[in-house]
């Protein structure tokens, strides 16, 4: 090692905080190199000055009543902030126990989210269609509805089909005010309105709706698992 490297290790060499081979190497270098030896003496002096602080003076005066004060504080705060906090062990069965509650709640929420996601993936259309704003009693199967038919979505046919209070506050009878309901939907006859919008459309029959597309795939029969326990 050269002098630069030796100097680098001197702060730890002074107290012997180095490995034995390193200590030996520095020892032999310091025996030969005067500048490094001088630097070592400087470290020694500064360390000695620090070690002098380690000499404890008589602290009995300073610490008079020290433990009594602590015990008094403990006594005063009994059951309060200073009381020992017992180690709590939670059993796995106690769902609502202490800090486990929030963890369990988070786990339950996660399970719910996963179940919802699973249901959604199995049946993507369910529950995701926009709400229907058609009048009560109207045909709500919008797959069969042509534009302007009762049961169509509000944004397809205009805002008249909206409930008087839907999203726009109180109904207004003022003319020329856009997006405000002029009359409650109960006064609109859906069939008449559909005819008005599309005179060529056929009148709705009372026959039950039949799906024109046959099921391509047979229904999967549930498999019965034999319990072995």
């Amino acid at each position, binding site marked *: 090692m050269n002098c630069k490297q030796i100097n680098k290790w001197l*702060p*730890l060499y*002074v*107290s012997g*905080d180095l490995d034995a081979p390193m200590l030996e190497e520095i020892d032999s270098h310091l025996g030969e190199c005067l500048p490094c030896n001088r630097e070592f003496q*400087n*470290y020694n002096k*500064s*360390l000695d*000055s*620090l*070690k*002098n*602080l*380690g000499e*404890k*003076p*008589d*602290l009995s*005066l*300073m*610490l008079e009543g*020290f*433990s009594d*004060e*602590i*015990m008094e*504080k*403990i*006594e005063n705060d009994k059951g309060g*902030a*200073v*009381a*020992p*906090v*017992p*180690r709590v062990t939670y059993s796995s069965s106690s769902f609502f126990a202490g800090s486990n509650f929030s963890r369990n709640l988070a786990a339950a929420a996660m399970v719910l989210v996963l179940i919802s996601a699973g249901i959604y993936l199995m049946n993507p259309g369910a529950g995701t269609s926009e709400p229907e704003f058609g009048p009560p009693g109207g045909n709500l199967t919008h797959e069969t509805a042509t534009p302007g038919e009762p049961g169509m979505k509000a944004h397809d046919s205009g805002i008249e089909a909206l409930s008087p209070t839907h999203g726009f506050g109180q109904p207004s009878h003022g003319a020329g005010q856009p997006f405000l309901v002029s009359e409650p939907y109960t006064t609109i006859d859906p069939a008449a309105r559909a005819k008005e919008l599309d005179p060529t459309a056929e009148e709705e029959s009372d026959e039950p709706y039949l799906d024109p597309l046959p099921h391509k795939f047979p229904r999967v029969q549930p498999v019965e698992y034999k319990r072995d326990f």
Partner: protein
Amino acid sequence: MAEPKSDTDIIRACQEGDQAAYSTLVTRYQERAFWVAYNMLGNAEEARDAAQEAFLRVYRAIDRFDFNMNFYTWLYRIVTNLSIDRLRKLKKNKAVAIAGLEESIKDPSGENRPSHQLEQDETKELVRKVLERLPDKYKSILVLRDIEGHSCKEIASITGASHATVRWRLHTARKLFKESWERMMKGEMGRAG
């Protein structure tokens, strides 16, 4: 005469609700706790408060004491951390004057002190001033290693840092201290000359 109880026995008694047992533990470690805090803070009153707070915190957590650890290691860790917290607060509110222990507890009839003793006290004050300027993490290492005399391994368990980190910090701390100390001594000599 009954043998003094070990720390472990006392802690077990505390855990079973024996409050008086804790008093024994406080008496046993109060000087050491105070002395570490004082060397960190350089102020006797602050050190006393920090040591008391540390003992209160230890009592609050005594039920969670890890018996694989030494009690004093645990106590030193709390004292050191509380002292560092206080140092930060003190640096923020610079209004608090640093009063040396020597000022607080020195012999009321100070005139009888021999001259070499006064000289030593002055040197100690200078050392404290140099320590004061060091960053907290280096100061705590110097206090624990060079003033308290703990090994690097003990310091690692007290501070929660790795052995290598402690050695590296000790290396830097001693270098910084020496440089600052030499500057201070040169300044003192220049003033004296």
